[in-house]
């Protein structure tokens, strides 16, 4: 690749370097770096499976160029929490059965996280609007709606976990 260059990406709080050409998307770069929790669903912004937070804002990583992300904080679903220290959204998705096949879950949770930064006490319709770019084929969105609502409550109680 004639126009490849090394870029440093800060992913879930750690700097990682990857040599990529200009047209390489953040999705491809993240997956090549082993962050396969970021899912590839359509590569054109129709499904939201690849959503990550870039400086706290949810973006489709398939529509974001890796080069443009140098200097930004990138957060994937694995950066939000883990089994030892789960994010309230993750707890709520488990407890309320919001993950079925689970392929949309990483993007769905990230999109919900980005949205709950702005709206801390959302209505059903707020949540529906925030998640309309995240397709799910298994759940009918009902339990996802419940989980996001419940997580918002947990987050308000915790005073907002970052």
């Amino acid at each position: 690749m004639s126009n490849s260059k090394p870029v440093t990406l800060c992913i879930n709080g750690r700097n990682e370097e990857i040599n990529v050409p200009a047209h390489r998307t953040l999705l491809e770069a993240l997956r090549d770096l082993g962050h396969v929790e970021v899912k590839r669903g359509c590569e054109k912004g129709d499904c939201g499976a690849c959503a990550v937070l870039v400086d706290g804002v949810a973006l489709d990583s398939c529509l974001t160029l890796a080069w443009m992300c140098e200097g930004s904080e990138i957060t994937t679903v694995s950066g939000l929490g883990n089994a030892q220290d789960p994010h309230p959204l993750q707890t709520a998705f488990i407890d309320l059965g919001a993950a079925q096949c689970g392929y949309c879950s990483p993007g769905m949770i990230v999109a919900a996280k980005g949205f709950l930064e702005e709206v801390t006490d959302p209505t059903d319709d707020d949540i529906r609007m925030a998640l309309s770019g995240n397709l799910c084929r298994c759940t009918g969105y009902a339990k996802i709606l419940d989980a996001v609502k419940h997580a918002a409550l947990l987050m308000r109680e915790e005073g907002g976990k970052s």
Partner: protein
Amino acid sequence: MSREFDLHMPDSLEDALNVLSDMESTPLAGGTNLLVDVRSQRERPKRVVALGRVTGLRGISFDGEKTVVGARTTISDLLQSPEIANSGPSLIEAARVFAGQMVRNAGTVGGNIACASPAADLIPPLMSLDAEVTLAGSSGNRTVALADYYQGYKQDIRRPDELITRISWAQLPRNSVNMFYKLARRKGDAITVTSVAVTLSMSNGKCAGARIALGAVAPCVVRAKEPEQLLEGQILSETLIADAAEQAAAQCNPIDDVRASAVYRRHCVQVLVGRLLLQAWNRLA
């Protein structure tokens, strides 16, 4: 390979315009259209100028006369802006049904204008506000009415060395209503089948001004100027509004595609124009 391109990431407008002055570079704003087109190879840019780091292009302000929106302002920015809610309520309605959250976070006002799609959701509202587009180029700036910006399907008057830098519109007259409706095949994250934006203002019980903009029913977003003229200066009645709606439908030029037929689109123009005008007038009265 064919999807490859050179990428410039200038920090300033001046640098961006410098790169664009080669006349064969493609500006990249939110990327939600261009990168999709690159992937499908509908677009094969040699050189891409990413505007993400250019300062001074993002923000919403009121300069005393006009609302000014920087071209890099995102759709989400619009949704959160009290200024927009006040000065261009139809834009909020359009932003609410604009794709999904991630695309709203990335997609920009300038990008939506520049993609020049007849189905671009922000254009009918902006046209109904008489918005103007400011272009900066190596040879200087110019400001043109959005209504004169498009020349055909995906054709606009921007020269390759120019960038859209801002969109602005004057405050609506005191007694005005500005509305938008998007008809699509589903509610969330949908491509427009037909959209309509209207502005009506009233003075002394009469229609002082009318703007009707139609999306996805012609090669580009269009104003329905004859129906506008029909209404201006009149006391609006249901009959007059119906006539205007019929005229709008007669004058648009839709096509058949996977989403809907031309016949249905024309029918919907008539329904929606009539409906929005009536609602707007009733709110004014």
